């Protein structure tokens, strides 16, 4: 089976996010008040061959821990679509 997978990489909780805080500080200047908790990450899309959705998720989670993210500073959320 072929699965489309979305990996959302975000800065770990408790790790400062300089991009997020810079954006958060800029928003009021444009009139967007009341915005908080801005976090900037990245999205990685992949298409993988795997026998099941669970196997696809396991494969991509392995990629995340070994390569796609740095676990010292980043978390990943894996979403599998058939």
């Amino acid at each position: 089976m072929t699965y489309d997978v979305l990996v959302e990489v975000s800065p770990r909780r408790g790790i400062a996010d300089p991009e997020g805080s810079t954006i958060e500080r800029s928003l009021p200047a444009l009139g967007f008040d009341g915005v908080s908790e801005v976090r900037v990450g990245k999205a990685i899309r992949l298409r993988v061959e795997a026998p099941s959705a669970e196997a696809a998720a396991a494969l991509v989670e392995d990629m995340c821990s070994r390569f796609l993210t740095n676990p010292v500073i980043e978390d990943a959320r894996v979403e599998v679509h058939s």
Partner: protein
Amino acid sequence: MSARVGVIQFPGTNCEFDTVDAIRALGGDADVVWHRDTSIAGYDAVVVPGGFAHGDYLRPGAIAQFSPVMDAVSEFAVAGGPVIGICNGFQVLTEVGLLPGALQKNAGLSFCCRAQTLEIAAVDHVLGHGLSVGERVEIPINHFEGNYVCSQETLAQLRAEHRVVFRYVDNPNGSIDDIAGVCNEGRNVVGMMPHPERATSALLGSEDGARLLTSLLKAVAG
């Protein structure tokens, strides 16, 4: 025989020739080693220099950690061989796992390119010979992702084991505990964001970097 230093070159590295020139000017022998080489046999020390290895794609050092030469560099480091990571090289060594922590974007998102005062925090490592704890040196920085981060447990361990080797005076990038450089448990692997190879002559504004590189050459000579 003068010490022979291998300076690793990835696609996108840009400080390899400055590093080679600086080491040669100090009486050492140095060559550029291509990242696809699988051996570093014959070298007494390794420098992973600055630049943008593999374009810094994904994150600095993320792809460089899988370059063929890094297996040989890791084996060399684990066996006690001196390995120095400068700037992007420091990022590569954290990604490979030879040094703890990680380097993220500078606080305030500023690209920092300037002369930087550092305080020597430890001297019992391969770059510390001839320096004294508490002494200040001036070595330039040139980075966007030099903001050192690690877990509180790692920080406590680094402090307890005196493995923070350089600290910024007037922290430019938000690094935790003002950390500019750390060493591994064996004290033979050192990573630092400042560029000692760019501070090797009064003409360049400082000669302090030459003292660090001279320490490396002495560490090799024993």
